[in-house]
Structure formats: structure tokens, C-alpha cells
């Protein structure tokens, strides 16, 4: 079983209605691995995450989780199977407290709190500010604090695979560092992390492997530390730009 990746895509195509955004994506991730997905705006990174997670229609065999075909399974069923997502823009539940936002995840998690690796207590130890603000409405928190809630919410689903969509977007460098320091702790539990990130340097540092996307295709893949910067630049912008 160990050579079966926990999550993989197979010739995944998809998009929004008539607009095709992804053209045959093959990628995979193993348990405990951190894989970065980099690429320019509009390369299809977020679309790929949404397609994997059942938020956009894809063929059944295009997504495999623990060896089973799960493409097109609705997102709430994906959570039960063991995938969770930190969506772009955080998407927290406005009008509810920090605690209530976390409770939603606990209510619907793959495993009850206490049986999975993550508990609120554990997360409050990682993000002490959240313990302090647990009874406050979510809209009273700063952007960085909200991102911590979003990550905590996803982790309380007790996922085997965590999909992170642009978790550094719009945050101060100090806060970004704070949040990225948590990632090794998450993978230490065997949780696989797919990291969509625009900041190439950050993505390389935080990941074991990376995939670079351009116009809905994967243009480069390899061990993050082994890939030379100019190869990434060529894959990121397309060959014609790299020459110029």
C-alpha cells in the first residue's frame, strides 16, 4: 500500500461551464509529504484544488484518494473521507464566533475530536491568540488571526490531506512566517499538504516537491530543492518569456 499515493489526479480536465481551465493534470502526493503548486495568476491552481475537492465537476476516475476513484464526490463527502481545504480568502462564517467556526468542523469531521490528531486545545497551543479570542465574532479578528482560524477549522476536520489555497495572500511577512512554521507540525502527523502558493521562494522552502502550472498544464515537476531557479522561471512564465 505504501507505494500508492494518498491522493492523485489522472488526466484531470475541467473548468467552469464551457470554459476549460485544466488540460490533463497528472499529479500525486504521498502521506506526510508537502507538495507545492506554483504558477502565475490564472494558471489553474485554485481550479485544480476545487476540482479535486468536488467543488467543480470532474470525471470519477480523474481523482483517486487512497486508491479509490472519488472524482466529483461532493465536498462535504470528501471531508468525511479525509480531505479538507483552507480556501482562498479564508471564507470563515461571518456572524459566528471563533469557537463556533471551529465547532462546525468538529460537528462534521472524519473523526470525533479526541480520536483524530487535532483538538481545539492543541490548536490553541499552536495559535495562543485564538484561545484568547475564542468567544469573539470572527469579523473582529485581524487577517492573520482569521487565517489561523481557517487553518484550525480545516485541521479539525481531521484530514489525511490538507489543501491550502494561497494562505499567505494579503498577510504581513511576519504573520506569513508564523503560519508557515506550523506546516512541519501538520505533516508530522502524516497529513499530506498541497500548498498553492504564488510566492515561489516560500513554496520551495516549505515543500518536498513542487509542480509548476502554466495555462492549465503542468510544465515542471521535481524535488523542490533540486530544481534550479531559471528552470522554474521558464516553467512559470512559459519558454518564450524566459528567453526574453
Amino acid at each position, binding site marked *: 500500500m505504501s507505494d500508492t499515493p494518498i491522493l492523485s489526479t489522472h488526466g484531470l480536465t475541467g473548468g467552469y461551464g464551457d470554459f476549460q481551465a485544466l488540460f490533463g493534470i497528472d499529479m500525486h502526493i504521498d502521506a506526510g509529504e508537502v507538495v507545492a503548486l506554483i504558477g502565475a495568476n490564472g494558471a489553474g491552481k485554485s481550479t485544480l484544488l476545487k476540482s479535486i475537492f468536488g467543488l467543480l465537476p470532474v470525471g470519477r476516475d480523474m481523482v483517486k484518494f487512497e486508491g479509490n476513484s472519488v472524482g466529483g464526490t461532493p465536498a462535504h463527502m470528501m471531508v468525511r473521507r479525509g480531505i*479538507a481545504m483552507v480556501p482562498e480568502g479564508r471564507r470563515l462564517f*461571518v*456572524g459566528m464566533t471563533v469557537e*463556533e467556526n471551529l465547532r*462546525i*468542523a468538529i*460537528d462534521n469531521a472524519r473523526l470525533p475530536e479526541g480520536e483524530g490528531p487535532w483538538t481545539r486545545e492543541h490548536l490553541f497551543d499552536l495559535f495562543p491568540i485564538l484561545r484568547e479570542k475564542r468567544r469573539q465574532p470572527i469579523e473582529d479578528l485581524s487577517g492573520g488571526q482569521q487565517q489561523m482560524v481557517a487553518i484550525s477549522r480545516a485541521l479539525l476536520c481531521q484530514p489525511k490531506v490538507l489543501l491550502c489555497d494561497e494562505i499567505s495572500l494579503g498577510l504581513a511577512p511576519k504573520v506569513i512566517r508564523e503560519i508557515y512554521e506550523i506546516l512541519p507540525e501538520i505533516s508530522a502527523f502524516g497529513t499530506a499538504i498541497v500548498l498553492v502558493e504564488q510566492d515561489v521562494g516560500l513554496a520551495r522552502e516549505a515543500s518536498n516537491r513542487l509542480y509548476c502550472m502554466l495555462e492549465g498544464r503542468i510544465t515542471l515537476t521535481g524535488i523542490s530543492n533540486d530544481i534550479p531557479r531559471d528552470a522554474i522561471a521558464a516553467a512559470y512564465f512559459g519558454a518564450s518569456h524566459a528567453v526574453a
Partner: protein
Amino acid sequence: MQWLDAVIQGVLLGGMYAQYALGMALMFGVMRIVNIAHGDVMILLSLIAVSLAGVLPFGNLGLIVVIVPIAVVIGWILQKFILNKVVGADPLPSLIATFGLSIALQNFMLEIWSADTRSLPNSDIASASFQIGSIYVGLLPVIVLITALVLTGGLDAVLRFSRFGRGLRAAAADTEAAAMTGVDPKRIYAIATAIAVGILGLAAVFAALRATVSPSDGSAQLIYAFEAVIIGGMGSVWGAFLGAMVLGVAQAIGLRIDPGLGILFGHLVFLAVLATRPEGIMARKK
């Protein structure tokens, strides 16, 4: 004393309106689904109750036990097979779908029950009253008001503290993010509408006990429910209760000024609230 009496009668009338409004507070206030057929569904349930009362020897309490489950099933079907297909960020599709349903229901009811007004047979409860000082208070309106209070408190607690309530508030705040967190929005919406229409089932029996109903009465109930929710503030169950009280008292006072002014007075107070505090009395501060 005349005005105190008007206020008391208004509060009692408000108890009836609160029962109309609670389902609306859940569907429109929380889920942001505009259900134009809200009043017609209630009238349908009232007419079913009237017809059943002739066949079943249950008495009025027994009637509630039969009608509420029917209402719950109707609500679940309504959400599962109609509203879940049109629900989304845009309120217009649900408005159009339920507008069509409203017209269809009214004609269906005319076909079955004709345009006659009907009510449940007079019972002891409906005619009993007691006296406080020089003011007479009907027993049935008091029961209606207490029921409304219990329903409001219960619904508020369910929304605040239950797993279902949290899931519903999450789905209403951001349907896609709720799904990402493991909530099945369609299932939870179907349960919510079942609860909303179930409450309407209770209101339907009380309405038919209290006064008469006919197939075309639905639009008035719809307006009262809308006004109560908006006066009270979207998303607040106690707000809808308070809005119903405001509406009831305004109508009762208007009625004392001139018997033709009652309903108009209610609408005027609604307009006054819209003009001065459009977010509603109990709206949360942003």
C-alpha cells in the same frame, strides 16, 4: 383603559402573527430564501385541518398532532424538490419559483374547497375568556401567544446551540465554505424548511380556530410575516417575535381609532420602521 385594552389585544394578535413569522424568520431571515407561497401553504394546512376535523374525532389538540407532521413533510418536499434546485446567492430564482407555486396552490385550493370561508368547529377553548380588572382576555389568544413564545425560544436555542443550528447558520453565511467544512447544505436546508413549515402547521390550526380561512387569504399572512421579520431585523428569531408584536399592537390601536384603519396602521408602522431603521429593531451591529 381603552388603550391598555388595545395594547393587550394587540399583543395577543401579535402572538398569532409571530407564529406566521417564525417560519419566515428561518427561511427569509436566516437562509435568505424568499418563499412567496408561505401564506398559501399555511392556508392549505388550515383547510386540510378543517376537512380533517369533520372526519377525525380527535378534538383540536389531536388535530395539531396530525397537521404538524403533514406540514413537516410538505416543507421537506418543498425544499428538496423545488427550492434546493433554485437556491443560491441570487434570491430571484426562489422568488419566481415560489410565486408560481403560490398561484398554483391558490387555484388548487379553490378547486378543492371553493372560495367559501371556513373555520374549525367552535370549541370551548375558542370561546372561553377570563377577566382581568375590566379587561376581557380570550383563552385561545393567550394559548396562541404562549405557544409563540415557546416556539420562538425553542427555535432561537436550536439555532444558537445545536449542531443543526450551527450548520444552518454556516450554510447561510457561505454555502460553499460550509460544504468544505463537511456540512451538507441541501440536507440541512431541507430540515430547516421542514421545521419552518412545521411551525406553520401549528399556526394553521390556531388560525382556523380563531377566525375563518379561505383560499385567497394567503397573501395577507405572507405580508404580515414579511413585515414582522423586517421590522424585527433579518436573522433574529426574537426580532421576528418583536416585529409581530409591533404589528399586532399597531393594528389593534388603529382599529380603536377607526374600525377601518387597523390593517393600514400596521402597514404604516412597517413603513415608518423601514424609513427610520431599515435594518430592523434587533439587527446586529455591523
